[in-house]
């Protein structure tokens, strides 16, 4: 097989492998969701979701993340057109939106903790913090990834590895967006109402 064909085959393998990884991440989140569902009413005499969750605030978080997914999609289109400047700009916007999301989420957590509703208070809060923070940590990893990748693309341009990595990054970012939709529904909407 020629070197170019080998490299292309290798890139395809990496994409398949990354898909499988995302499926394993799916199972990980599913486990946390299942635990949350079982413990959503285990409030240990303390406040539950209805008392604690600020739905408009969470809506803002959601809009930030959804928009960042959109700009990530724009970045991928720029990638396909090999437009390095546009790609980097869209990646930067995605980064900023994601950072804002993390900031808001951190703020939400800080408020809960200072009010005494931290993860030690009840099974419900343990499950809530772990599920949402796991997603938040994944977002942080994505932000770091975007930063490192952006620098790499800026300095080395769009070559074999960077193209592959940008593809993987966008898969990762969209996946996290989907997980957030579930969090929004299962954690905030469902528990916020009951």
């Amino acid at each position: 097989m020629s070197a170019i064909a080998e490299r292309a085959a290798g890139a395809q393998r990496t994409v398949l492998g990354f898909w499988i990884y995302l499926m394993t991440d799916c199972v990980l989140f599913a486990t946390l969701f299942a635990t949350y569902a079982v413990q959503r009413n285990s409030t240990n005499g303390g406040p539950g979701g209805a008392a604690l969750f600020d739905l408009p605030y969470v809506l803002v978080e959601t809009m930030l993340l959804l928009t960042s997914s959109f700009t990530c999609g724009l970045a991928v289109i720029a990638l396909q057109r090999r437009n390095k400047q546009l790609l980097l700009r869209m990646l930067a916007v995605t980064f900023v939106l994601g950072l804002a999301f993390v900031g808001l989420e951190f703020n939400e957590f800080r408020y809960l903790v200072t009010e005494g509703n931290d993860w030690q208070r009840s099974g419900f809060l343990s499950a809530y913090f772990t599920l949402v923070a796991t997603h938040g940590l994944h977002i942080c990893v994505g932000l770091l990834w975007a930063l490192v990748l952006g620098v790499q693309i800026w300095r080395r341009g769009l070559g074999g590895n960077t193209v592959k990595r940008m593809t993987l990054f966008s898969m990762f970012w969209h996946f996290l967006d989907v997980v957030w939709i579930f969090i929004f529904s299962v954690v905030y909407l469902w528990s916020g109402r009951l």
Partner: protein
Amino acid sequence: MAHVKKRIIRRRNFILAATIVGIVVFGVVARYLYVTPIAVLQPAGPIAAGQRELMVVASVLMLLIVVPVFTLAGVFAWRYRESNKKARYAPNWDHNRAFEVIWWFVPSALIAVLAVMTWHGTYAYDPYKPLLSNQKQITIQAVALDWRWLFIYPEQKVASINYVRMPVNTPIKFEVTSDAPMNSFWIPQLGGQVYAMPGMGTQLHLMANEQGDFYGSSANISGKGFAGMNFVAAATPRYSFDAWVADAQTKSPLTLEQYAEVAAPTTDRRVYTYSAPAAGLYDTIISKYMTDHTNMEQTE
């Protein structure tokens, strides 16, 4: 010629010796099994008897598959060993629909039969199902502690540690919980076990058809003293039970303070008896762990 004869004699001697050793070993094992109690196979109550019956029937049914497997394995290994030149050799024969149908279908049929048995048996011997009897049911609450068992008789208003007495031929409803890690409440001769969990109440309905002292234990590891968590489950005539209750009512009461002492970790396995367990003690123990919206009562 002579060495062939010697080999035959040696082989004969070997078979003779092996047979004698085999008979001796068999005799020793048989006697041992005869004199040693095998609790699960020697039921003293209807639940354990039903469980044994299921076990025996299922085992016999499975022999329908297992015996052919062993036979085929032995026969094929012997017949088709490479030194046997007489056997047919068909190196590319790798497919036969009829055979495949047989061994997909016959085990499936067997499993179907076992499945029906399982379905009926699971409902029939459901630990939550009360036993039918013309005698009135007695409730005994079993609490797993570190590392012994506390038995509370809410109706008779007595309590005991590591000893539970029940009248024979009377259905007993055990309500089981734990004030310690997860344990498992098990009296093999009367019937199977149920987990004892803090903050939760499980149930086990049992009955003794025979008098006797039956071995009970905890079947789930709960810490350092777990191996010592044996108790005696005694089935006696009704008058004997009543006498024991009357005697227990003269002992010191099991107040909440006394209970706190009793529940402290200890490997003291001795039997103690108390009168007047604190009202609602069992429920108090459970609700120590329960909080809002976590109603973990396992009732059916």
